[in-house]
């Protein structure tokens, strides 16, 4: 069942085209990723789905409703985690949750949410005195307060340190496991790869690919490398004949095999048949990052976040 149906969405701000014919469906119970560099149109697409913006043309149905015409009904059933929203500095955790609980028809008990998100001890703490991770958990709790059927998470790990990011990922999995459909907006490859069932890759207002992360990585056709140290002698030409292998090089005692598709399994099989044992076996995983380059012909550049830049470098 489709929870969200988006068809031929167009949106421009003056001269700038934010969305240029975007179409996709989000199925019930899945974590759907919208991935793309900054300015690709992700947030615009999400804000249109939330009814906060209107598209120039195209149709959107969320839970069967028009987000603009039925905005209020929809906000009753949809939870939202906004990018870079803050609360009043001196409002306390318990106060915000109690206040927002009053906005919904059938809210979750505040005490239950405080326990669930590890905020019970911070109940009387002012918003500005919370750490980044605690603020993020509070926003997640707020998004889930109205027992939503669908939640939008927009850049949920922006500004978090690596440990807090991993914690947040666990929390998103918990939300998914409770049966809520999740739309996850991110410019972080690893995040999307880690969490999403399906991913739409947006680039300059267009969807350039839509599939499971694994399929996107595989179909991108970029090469993968396998490294190992053989114990014993490998018969000449043995590895080269494995389907998908494009090159075999040696570096000291190490063998580096480059290939595409399922070549690594083939290599392992012929080595086993030739009774050659290997040590230090490493398979360099391709990532969505590689897929992005393959799909758009240019690197996934994100100058706004040097920390992630470094991480992406490391992944290459």
């Amino acid at each position, binding site marked *: 069942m489709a929870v969200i149906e988006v068809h031929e969405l167009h949106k421009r701000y003056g001269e700038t085209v934010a969305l240029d014919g975007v179409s996709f469906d989000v199925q019930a119970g899945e974590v759907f990723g919208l991935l793309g560099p900054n300015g690709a149109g992700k947030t615009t697409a999400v804000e249109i789905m939330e009814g906060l913006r*209107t598209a120039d043309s195209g149709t959107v149905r969320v839970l069967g409703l028009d987000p*603009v*015409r039925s905005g*209020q*009904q929809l906000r009753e059933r949809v939870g939202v985690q906004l990018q870079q*929203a*803050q*609360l009043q500095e*001196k409002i306390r955790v318990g106060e915000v949750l109690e206040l927002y609980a*009053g906005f919904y028809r059938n809210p979750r008990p505040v005490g239950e949410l405080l326990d669930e998100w590890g905020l019970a001890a911070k109940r009387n703490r002012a918003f500005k005195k919370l750490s980044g991770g605690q603020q993020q958990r509070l926003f997640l709790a707020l998004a889930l307060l109205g027992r939503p059927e669908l939640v939008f998470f927009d850049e949920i790990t922006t500004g978090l340190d690596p440990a807090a990011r991993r914690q947040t990922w666990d929390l998103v999995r918990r939300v998914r496991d409770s049966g809520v459909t999740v739309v996850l907006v991110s410019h972080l490859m690893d995040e999307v790869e880690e969490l999403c069932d399906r991913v739409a890759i947006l680039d300059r207002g267009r969807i350039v690919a839509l599939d499971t992360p694994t399929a996107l990585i595989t179909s991108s056709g970029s090469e993968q490398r396998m490294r190992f140290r053989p114990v014993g002698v490998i018969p000449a030409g043995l590895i080269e004949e494995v389907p998908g292998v494009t090159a075999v090089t040696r570096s000291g005692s190490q063998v580096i095999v480059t290939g595409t598709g399922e070549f690594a399994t083939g290599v392992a099989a012929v080595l086993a048949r030739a009774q050659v044992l290997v040590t230090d076996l490493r398979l360099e995983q391709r990532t969505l990052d590689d897929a992005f380059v393959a799909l758009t012909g240019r690197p996934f550049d994100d100058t706004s976040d040097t920390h992630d830049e470094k991480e992406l470098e490391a992944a290459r």
Partner: protein
Amino acid sequence: MSTLESPQSEREATKAGRLTLGDLSEQRTPRALAAMTKIETTLFFREPLLPALVLLLPVLLVIGFGLIPGFGDPSSDLSGQSGTEYIASIGVAIVLAVLGLSILPTTLGTYRERGVLRRLRATPVTPRTLLGAQLLLVGGATLAATVLLVLVGSLGFGVAVPRNPAGFLLAVVLGAAALLSLGLLVAAVAPTAKAANAIGMTLFFPSMFLAGVYVPRETFSPFLQHVSDVTPLGAALAAVRDTWQGSWPHPVHIATMVGWALVAAVVAARTFRWE
């Protein structure tokens, strides 16, 4: 992108959803407004400076000047009003100016800048509710500060309770409407919280001077008195002083306050941005 005015689509949505969830949400709005007003009031008192400025400072002025011997006698320089009663009147003007030109625009500017309003847009309750809560808070603070001034003045320093109570209430309410609408307008046109504060302050000091807070308007030239009559704070202070002495507010002052309130509110409603 949305303004204070209900967009066409939202009005349609309310119509379409009348028999379903729309109604339930409509019933929740007054409850949300009450809850938000309560929280905003709590937050107001958590900022130590705000209550001191609004509730304490004007009263301290009355106490300070009231202790000067002979200050409570009627003065010909103040059109027959006593010095203490004049100080109590400018106390009301200070409250109106501080709330309307400083606290309200800065608070709303900050809420928009921090995304508090944006976050509310994603709930079934509209951010208009928070605007309403803020207006109730500053309106309530105006009345509370005024009552405090009248009580301290009359109990401690021989200031008469306003001799035309209905006229006095009208003057304070219209003055608040004018200054608070102006505050909304400042919040609407200012791109950031800092700008809201700066614009508010730019209006604050000339307003206070022209209203006759720093020096009584009786010392003004006739031309300056006419200018004072058509400024929102000038009209408000004149009306407060007139009604304190027992007359009704001058029609020019009523027209000035109503005019500023309407124009500022309409322009604010058309230009206000949630983000």
